[in-house]
């Protein structure tokens, strides 16, 4: 029983667990050796000889998307409902010597919106997006105290202020601005947040990972509010790199479609604010129920053929959310529209027995927005749950993956009680997160 007592101590650290009778736990035939794992999936207490499941929930209390389709979640969602894309063919641009299809935020509108904030000093394009996106969430919900030491900012970005490396921008900002930790300092200083921002830079899963981290850090009880913001901008740097891979489609990308031939790139910024205090929720309560990351351990720039890495992340996410595959209402896929990514996803989704669940990709609306993708696509999933509307996959016509996944063609109204968001990226990384609506 000495080991047992040590476990009880550990559970107390989680705040939400009151194990009053360890012997009862044992008699309930739960294998003691697995209890710490068990506790993670199903937090519990024993009261009056009954096992009671408890959870430390993470609720979404505000969100924002800035993309070529709009500067708020509502504005973006309204465009997607009408199946309007933000990806455009740019005949001449600073992004590429040749014409390129990309989703680019209108510079004049960004300038106009940012001027309204009356900021005192110059900020880079990406910093402006972060500041605008976070400011919008603070306006939505006055319960968010951005200056509190109990509020943490998590930033997700793959390339940060990489445009400052371009010779055209030399000297406009201090070289220090190239470092992502400095981006964190600039943003926290602007908002007067006393904590050092936590920066995640993990390729295309960064956004999903940042939300999962937010949930996990709330479980630790060191913070009561976590502002998760993800952004990346369109640069010649990124476009030329993907072009050198011959990965960029000459048209608006076609996720999961038979004629898909590569990605469209995009720029965006998105913010979700999480809290463990349900009283701060305005409107429909949506919680982050589980999340996980994994690695294919297969190839640095190509996904696994079998989808086993993504499958692992999905299975662990469902387990943490205490759900089985048949309960999943909607999947917001990664769907970059490369041959290999979409095929890999279809393999993983089918092996997870999720092939009948309605699924879409938003890459043909926003382009691949890298560090923002996981966050803005999650927010669209959340908005789908709030409005019981599933967005059709723009440019999807004919099934083009070898496993029959259920791709949503047209925007449809139906009850959406939960959303599984998946992501995969260079470095063989995968991630999944599950959001659920409370009645």
């Amino acid at each position, binding site marked *: 029983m000495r*080991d047992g007592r*040590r476990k009880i*101590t*550990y559970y107390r*650290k989680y705040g939400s667990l009151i194990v009053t009778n360890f012997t009862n736990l044992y008699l309930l035939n739960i294998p003691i*050796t697995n209890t*710490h*794992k068990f*506790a*993670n*999936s199903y937090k519990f207490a024993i009261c009056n000889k009954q096992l009671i499941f408890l959870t430390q929930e993470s609720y979404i209390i505000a969100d924002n998307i800035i993309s070529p389709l709009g500067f708020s979640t509502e504005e973006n969602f309204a465009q997607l409902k009408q199946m309007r894309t933000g990806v455009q063919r740019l005949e001449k641009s600073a992004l590429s010597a040749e014409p390129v299809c990309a989703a680019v935020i209108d510079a004049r509108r960004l300038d106009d919106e940012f001027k309204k904030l009356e900021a005192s000093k110059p900020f880079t394009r990406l910093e402006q997006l972060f500041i605008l996106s976070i400011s919008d969430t603070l306006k939505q919900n006055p319960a968010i105290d951005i200056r509190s030491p109990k509020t943490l900012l998590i930033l997700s970005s*793959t*390339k940060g202020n990489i445009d400052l*490396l*371009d*010779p055209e921008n030399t000297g406009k900002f201090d070289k220090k601005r*190239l*470092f*992502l*930790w*400095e981006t*964190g*300092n600039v943003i926290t200083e602007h908002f007067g947040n006393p904590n*050092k921002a*936590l*920066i*995640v*830079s*993990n*390729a295309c899963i960064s956004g999903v*990972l940042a939300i999962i*981290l937010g949930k*996990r850090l709330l*479980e*630790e009880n060191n913070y009561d509010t976590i502002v998760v913001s993800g952004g990346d901008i369109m640069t*010649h*740097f990124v476009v*030329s*790199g*993907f*072009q*050198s*891979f011959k990965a960029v489609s000459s048209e608006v990308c076609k996720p999961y479609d038979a004629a898909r031939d590569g990605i469209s790139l995009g720029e965006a910024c998105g913010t979700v604010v999480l809290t463990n205090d349900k009283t701060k929720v305005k409107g429909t309560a949506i919680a982050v129920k589980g999340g*996980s*990351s*994994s*690695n*294919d*351990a*297969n190839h*640095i*720039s190509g996904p696994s053929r079998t989808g*086993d*890495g993504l499958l*692992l992340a999905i299975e*662990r996410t469902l387990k943490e959310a205490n759900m089985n595959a048949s309960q999943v209402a909607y999947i917001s896929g990664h769907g970059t529209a490369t041959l290999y990514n979409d095929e890999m996803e279809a393999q993983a989704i089918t092996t997870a027995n999720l092939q009948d669940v309605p699924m879409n990709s938003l890459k043909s609306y926003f382009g691949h927005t890298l560090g923002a993708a996981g966050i803005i696509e999650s927010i669209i999933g959340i908005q789908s749950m709030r409005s019981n509307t599933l967005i059709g996959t723009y440019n999807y016509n004919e099934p083009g993956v070898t496993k029959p996944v259920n791709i949503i063609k047209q925007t449809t109204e139906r009850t959406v009680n939960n959303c599984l968001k998946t992501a995969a990226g*260079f*470095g*063989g*990384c995968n991630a999944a997160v599950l959001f659920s609506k409370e009645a």
Partner: protein
Amino acid sequence: MSDVNYISAFCRISSGKVNVNHSIMFTGEEGEAPAAFIKSVYKHYQLNYPKFYKMDGLCQLAFVASELLLKDNKITERYNKEEIAIVISNGSASLEIDTEHQQTISDKANYFPSPAVFVYTLPNILIGEIAIRNLIKGENTFFIFDKFDAQFTAQYINSLLNSGRAESCIAGWVEFYEGNYDAFLYTVEKTPGVIRAEHTAEQLLNIYK
């Protein structure tokens, strides 16, 4: 089982020295450039991994440090590979190779972007390289800090292990930028290992000085 986790082994490569578990195992030549020093460590230990030569400097450093860390502490033989996490951070992300990619595209008359360079312009590629080499499939995250954040690293990885999201972890800091290099990789387990140090911020800072 308790909530105490241990730094079970470590490898530090910095200032021309390789330190594994408090023993200096290899010293480079005076004034050796970082890339040359990392290659001489690779050769000295006969690591024999052809992919090493495709990697950028940051990944080469991380790879060599991970090999020397795991050589004597074979966690991949003791844990399910889906239960091993990799959590690594640095300050400059991939700015060293980013600068190289930028040079290939800045001059329109001499324009030659290369996928072999561009693929390394993400810091988490080094996690991918370690994962591929060791077939590790667990949780993976790359963080950016201005300097190694022992407090956050210890706290986050302890919570990964204590919540059952991982059984062990390869953790640390790998920096390679403008002639500065510093790799500090270590394993975290529920059992003490050769180092016998609890996985706390204080102990990390005792080792990583």
